[in-house]
């Protein structure tokens, strides 16, 4: 292709539209360029200004989120967030979605999602030490659900297991709103030395721009644009825009990068994720305030005949872009040679603040950097407040199901059944530091060589967010906080993965705005800032949007692993104490949905001050060694929580009923800010709660091999276990027949 050919493709209105740019945006393109762009330049504008890369609909609201605390080293804006965990060490983490690709091709979509998020973390100099994932599938009855679940889980395992990073937790929901648009959100936590963190701002005019990793192929071209559009019935035809992962190469890339990072040769580094070489080069240049000249013919290519357009837009995986100190090329190359990876000097930094693309000496594109990277469009989209729903009056329940039968139904329901079938396919033990395995409130990994633990969790209750985005947003943050506290960790910071429908609909935009407000309020009240995140919009198929799903990934620190808690009851002679006040909220509860068949009502409100007080108390009790068994009360309410603690410890319990008020609301209400702890010294715990102004009451007594309610109806643990463990394996087995 010669210069003439780049310029000979006519830029028609149809071509502009195919590139996802509207008329207004194209006018801005013409203004910025001062001329008509050529095809390469148009392609670059297209991906840089896609919703996925530019955050044009969400920026205005994301800016309102609190991002600061004494322990935050790096907030949003880099590849991942960085927090101080003491002793000169930092935890680096982020969660990111790979929703659209995973629906089209579940194995590769999920696998490359995991690969991408791990690259974001090790780009910054951290070794990944834990993976988590937050998954949402359609209703179990939907014909695609098994296929998608099976492929996604295999893809996550296929990539994470090969990388040798334990997958220690996550969550999985099923709901009809995800029938045509599943959510796959992957999170990675890494560990680095606080004084050896790598950033992406390019610097040093004349410094070499270096490409390392896999060769560039034609896969994933326009993936970012695809991820920024709604689905329709023809979406399966978009399969070629899904990238193909190679975890083996990524493992080599990880080791090679960490080896190079132990030297002093790197100025800046950025992984090639969405929008590949385009996005990485523009971001590095824009942050550093420099220009770049790229020699595209030097890019390692997987096949012959590739064009500058394809090279700039390819989303081939397992690639990194670096700026090296001058004269370091040979020493750096030796490391990549050892790991049998490509290494190519493909450009140089200039002082022009322009991106100049060269192709065999000819100019294939010439664009200003800042207007593309930083001055991309920002929209204040119209939005509507979500109407409030009424609180559910327990008197409106039919109440025809016995408590024990309700428990049995709930614990075997798709919402609450054991996820063992999923997490046994993930290597959760590699690295030898997994202290709390999947199935608890948070996963916990030890910081190698210390007695510190990093706890991590992912949380969101989409049905709450749907009913009330502000309360639901608060709740997602509060639940992450609670899940960390329940292991004894001090919650430090979150990453948010905002999955919503089409932001051009005011109702959907209102969900986004409300959720941001709720998340922000909770972050401030709980001293739990946002340090990284990702937005995934247009999660719709044929005009039907998903439930709003702002998934929150929380990270906390356990300073002494000798004092941490798990959910399993450890002794039969323990009292069970509920920490936090019961108010009997049944709106949007699983009881209401599963037992009464009603998906309605106001979700449980979150009292952030009470949340903080209860959380601080519980963490202190664990730190003091007074409590080793703790579980937060979440989906399903008190009875389900106690049942999970009994199943995990293989010790039964008797649960008491209140003297007055609705038994159903007591047993199944999903009131927030609560925990159940087991202790042999209840007085000490009750006194501590009382002096901290936290509600606490004995709700039962551990012992035996069954769960009984007030000395009456009971169910054996073995029956309950069969129900809880049985659902998912038998559901998935039906797929094979």
């Amino acid at each position, binding site marked *: 292709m010669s210069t003439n050919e780049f310029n000979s493709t006519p830029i028609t209105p149809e071509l502009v539209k195919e590139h996802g740019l509207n008329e207004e945006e194209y006018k801005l393109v013409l203004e910025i360029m001062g001329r008509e762009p050529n095809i390469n330049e148009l392609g670059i504008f297209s991906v840089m200004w896609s919703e996925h890369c530019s955050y044009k609909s969400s920026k205005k609201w994301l800016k309102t989120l609190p991002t600061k605390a004494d322990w935050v080293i790096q907030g949003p804006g880099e590849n991942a967030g960085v927090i101080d965990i003491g002793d000169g060490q930092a935890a680096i983490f982020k969660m990111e979605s790979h929703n659209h690709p995973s629906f089209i091709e579940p194995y590769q979509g999920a696998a490359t999602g995991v690969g991408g998020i791990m690259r974001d973390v090790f780009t910054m100099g951290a070794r990944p030490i834990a993976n988590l994932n937050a998954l949402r599938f359609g209703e179990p009855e939907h014909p695609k659900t098994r296929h998608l679940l099976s492929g996604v889980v295999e893809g996550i395992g296929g990539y994470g297991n090969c990388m040798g990073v334990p997958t220690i937790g996550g969550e999985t929901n099923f709901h009809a709103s995800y029938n045509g648009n599943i959510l796959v959100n992957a999170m990675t936590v890494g560990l680095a030395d606080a004084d050896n963190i790598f950033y992406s701002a390019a610097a040093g005019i004349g410094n070499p721009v270096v490409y390392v990793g896999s060769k560039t192929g034609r896969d994933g071209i326009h993936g970012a644009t695809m991820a920024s559009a709604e689905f329709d019935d023809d979406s399966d035809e978009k399969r070629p825009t899904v990238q193909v992962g190679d975890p083996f190469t990524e493992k080599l890339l990880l080791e090679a990068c960490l080896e190079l990072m132990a030297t002093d040769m790197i100025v800046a580094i950025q992984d090639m994720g969405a929008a590949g070489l385009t996005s990485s080069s523009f971001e590095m240049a824009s942050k550093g305030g420099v220009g770049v000249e790229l020699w595209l013919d030097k890019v390692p290519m997987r096949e012959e005949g590739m064009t500058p357009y394809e090279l700039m837009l390819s989303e081939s995986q397992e690639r990194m872009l670096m700026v090296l100190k001058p004269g370091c090329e040979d020493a750096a190359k030796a490391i990549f040679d050892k790991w049998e990876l490509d290494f190519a000097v493909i450009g140089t930094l200039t002082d022009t603040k322009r991106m100049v693309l060269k192709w065999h000496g000819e100019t294939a594109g010439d664009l200003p950097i800042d207007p593309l990277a930083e001055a991309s469009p920002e929209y204040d989209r119209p939005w509507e407040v979500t109407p409030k729903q009424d609180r559910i009056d327990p008197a409106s329940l039919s109440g025809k199901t016995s408590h024990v039968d309700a428990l049995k139904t709930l614990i075997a329901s798709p919402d609450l059944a054991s996820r063992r079938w999923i997490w046994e396919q993930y290597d959760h033990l*590699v690295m030898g530091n997994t202290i709390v395995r999947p199935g608890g409130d948070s996963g916990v990994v030890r910081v190698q060589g210390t007695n510190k633990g990093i706890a991590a969790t992912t949380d969101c209750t989409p049905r709450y967010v749907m009913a009330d985005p502000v309360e639901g947003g608060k709740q997602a943050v509060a639940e992450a906080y609670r899940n960390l506290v329940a292991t004894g960790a001090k919650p430090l910071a979150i990453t948010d993965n905002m999955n919503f429908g089409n932001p051009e609909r005011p109702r959907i935009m209102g969900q986004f705005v409300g959720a941001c407000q709720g998340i922000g309020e909770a972050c401030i009240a709980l001293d739990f800032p946002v340090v990284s995140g990702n937005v995934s919009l247009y999660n719709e198929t044929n005009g039907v949007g998903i439930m709003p799903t702002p998934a929150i990934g929380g990270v906390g620190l356990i300073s002494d692993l000798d004092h941490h808690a798990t959910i399993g009851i450890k002794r039969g002679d323990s009292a069970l104490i509920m920490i936090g006040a019961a108010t009997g909220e049944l709106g949007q509860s699983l009881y209401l949905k599963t037992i009464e068949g009603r998906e309605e009502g106001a979700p449980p409100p979150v009292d952030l001050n009470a949340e903080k007080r209860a959380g601080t108390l519980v963490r202190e009790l664990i730190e003091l060694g007074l409590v080793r068994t703790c579980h937060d009360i979440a989906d399903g309410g008190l009875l389900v929580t106690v049942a999970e603690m009994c199943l995990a410890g293989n010790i039964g319990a008797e649960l008491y009923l209140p003297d007055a008020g609705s038994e159903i609301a007591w047993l199944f209400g999903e009131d927030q800010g609560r925990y159940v702890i087991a202790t042999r010294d209840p007085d000490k715990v009750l006194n501590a709660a009382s002096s901290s102004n936290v509600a606490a009451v004995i709700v039962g007594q551990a012992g035996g091999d069954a769960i009984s309610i007030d000395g009456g109806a009971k169910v054996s643990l073995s029956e309950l276990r069969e129900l809880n463990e049985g659902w998912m394996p038998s559901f998935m087995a039906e797929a094979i027949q």
Partner: protein
Amino acid sequence: MKSAVILFPGINRENDAIAALEQATGTKPTVVWHGETDLPKVDIIMVPGGFSYGDYLRCGAMAAKSPIMRAVADRAAQGATILGVCNGFQILTEAGLLPGALMRNASLKFICKNTHLRIENTSTRFTNQYGKGDVVDYPVAHHDGNYFADEDTLNRLEGEGRVVLRYCDVNGNVDPATNLNGSQRNIAGIINEAGNVLGMMPHPENAIDPLHGGIDGRGLFKSMVEAVS
């Protein structure tokens, strides 16, 4: 007491192996890159788990052809104590140092969980710290651990006491219900004819720490130390 850990591209449990060997021997093992042709003078050689060469072609097939494997084979012939775990077991079978092959799990899925194992032979240099019939608890984490060999080979292995570990339940029952991955005769680990090379799918190196996976695996490492000191 000196030991070495062989590192192939794509191996990922080398640090777990290093920790276990260091705990048992008191000395950090030497890490030997697969491209080397010589091994240092060591008493114990461990081939750790992971995904050497991404499991491409066949698990362990490409690593078995790496330069270092000639040196490993030489040391095996000289009687060195060699332990291959998980991918290490696959590599040793592909290298012809152990009979049989590891096929895809019968479930066709990756399995990560703790499992019970019955110690079948306590007179090996890997199991001398255990009692006959002891049931131990180690984690497994593999996609291709389904041990296969022809009937003659299996009979010979059994006859010579070379089946060292079998999948079982907490009471030591070995039956189809306790067969984790479809392995012939529930076999989880075997030794070579000379008794100096053990290959096994479960991970004793992830069972050396009460906070992580229990401590049942310590006996296996201690056995090697006792045998060579």
